[in-house]
């Protein structure tokens, strides 16, 4: 994961600190970005561990891994968004008094398109959360089934 971190560092170093709007002073942004890196690394690490040493069988664990993958993707997505937030020039966004009428100014470069797409980060994290829910629900059912079976057979 440090590799990832290093990869993204040049993305925000050349940026103008004064231009940062969302997270205030640059340390905050840096910490936030680093946290995303660690988060992403952690997700990959957990997927790796769950694959190498599966704690159980069944779809629940598969869903959990999918959920983790989406969380990972969400982090990558967030990293990109945040760095683009910093990189895009102030005039890239056309800010109106009416917030809802804000626009992305031309020229519509690749960067700006990427920024626009990645701004829809909820596609990742809602999916991740959805898989987490169905994974947990399935775990609940499996466990309940296991417990009643134990009760019936009387085995400890």
């Amino acid at each position, binding site marked *: 994961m440090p590799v990832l971190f290093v990869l993204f560092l040049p993305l925000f170093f050349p940026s103008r600190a004064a231009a940062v709007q969302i*997270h205030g002073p640059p340390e905050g942004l840096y910490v936030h970005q680093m*946290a995303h890196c660690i*988060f992403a690394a*952690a997700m990959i*690490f957990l997927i790796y561990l769950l694959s190498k040493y599966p704690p159980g069988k069944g779809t629940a664990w598969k869903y959990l891994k999918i959920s983790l993958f989406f969380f990972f993707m969400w982090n990558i997505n967030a990293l990109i968004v945040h760095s683009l937030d910093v990189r895009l020039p102030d005039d890239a966004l056309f800010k109106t008094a009416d917030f809802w009428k804000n626009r992305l*100014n031309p020229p519509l470069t690749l960067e700006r398109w990427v920024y626009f797409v990645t701004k829809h980060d909820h*596609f990742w994290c809602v999916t991740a*959360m959805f898989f987490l829910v169905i994974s*947990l629900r399935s775990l609940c059912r499996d*466990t309940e089934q296991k417990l009643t079976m134990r009760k019936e057979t009387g085995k400890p």
Partner: protein
Amino acid sequence: MNGFPLLSVYVVDFLGSSLMIVLSLTAFHYVNHLRKLEPRNVLWNYLFWLCLMLVTFALSRSLGHILKYIFIFMDIKHLWHHLAPFSGGWNTMTFVAVSALTFYYSNVRKVMAQVREDAKQIASANARLKEAHAALRQLNLSLEHRVEKRTRELKRSEQKFRRLFEGSKDVIFFCNAEGEITDINDSGVHLLGFKSKNEVLNTSLKEFFDDEEDWEVFFRNLLAHGDISEFEARLRRSDGSLLYLMLTATALKDSKSNMVSFEGIAKDITHFKEVTDTLIRSEKMASVGQLAAGVAHEINTPLGIILGYAQLMEEDFEDDEEVLDTLKTIEKQAKICRKVVADLLKFSRQSIERILAPIDIRQSIEEVISVMDHSLSMDQIYVELDMAKDLPPAFGDKEKIRQVFVNLINNAAQAIGKDGKIFIGADFDRENDMIEIYLGDSGPGISQDVMKKIFDPFFTTKGVGKGTGLGLSVSFGIIKDHGGHIDVQSPPKDQKLLEKGVNTVFYIYLPPMKDEESGQSES
């Protein structure tokens, strides 16, 4: 207006945040339920905390975003600028927490793996323990069964041998190394003249042996060879009577081949011995009788001639003292010879013709005594009579029966020597249908060794010329011819006789005359 509208971004952001809140609360519900189902499950606990962090992050972020829209909507955007760093900072912290928890999973996994490994080992140890326990139980059970079965078999075997031991008509005995009786069966106890086993236990077997030499031979053989079989020994009962036993014994030896005990079986051969003794005696007598008869016949004629000529010559030399003395000696010795020959012929039972008639025993005895009384009283020997009046008559040769009485009285007198008493009695034993005559004397009695041989022909303890050793054997033969038998006891068993000072007593048993005999009197 140029550019690309950002509205979709805001809409997705708003809806996404709301969905995130709903989903994260649902997720929390499930993970909490999961934890409640198995509160002790480490994995569930870990997942609970991981989800809690994810949920916290989702909630905080989503709530933050929603708040942003609310503020913008309410046109208090500047408030959002104040809140934004807090929301961002909080989000960052939840990221870190999620990451920390995630990285921590590897430890949790290791611990779980370790726990599972331990549990597996414990389970396998448990299983092995259970197996061992089951095996042990099985073993115990089968052991119990086996012990029960063995005990039953042992008991049966014990009973079998006990029955054999208790029921045997032969004596079965067990002795320790010193020869003391440690166990003996009832037959043994009774045969030795006791009533209960306790009287016999711990007494040395040696004490029952009448002849110490017998014991020594028996014991020495047992020590040397480890066993002895069919050893004939004379033992003495508690009441002093004799008992002949045939002993077979085996020694039990320890590892150093020292005898630790011995055990054996003894057969009562007293009766057998008596029968064979009698048989041997009569066999002996029969052969001697034949011989004697032959010799007697041959000698009788020359002897008669010698006697006749001696007497003739006595008449010729009446004046010559010296020759007359010599002739008289010849005559006397020839007469002794004739007596011996007569005795022999009597013994052979063929010599003299038999006169069969009823015999009044009482009268016969009285007649014999009246003849002998004189010479007996010379030696201060007195005869005491005690005869029943209603004796039935016997049947046979009166002379011969008388001869028996003469022989027995003579023996008694010779045994007494001088000054003593002879007791003669007769009675009818209805039970055995026998006339019983006894003749006791106050003489010195008869020793064990002599006792065995007194009925043998030519056995005598008396000096030459005094005894021929034929008296008793002839008497034995005569009584046997009459269907009776002679017995001797020294000392007598009869207490009354003992008190009177009797040391030797002869018993004569004769059958009474039968009805069909009364008619026939032959010569």
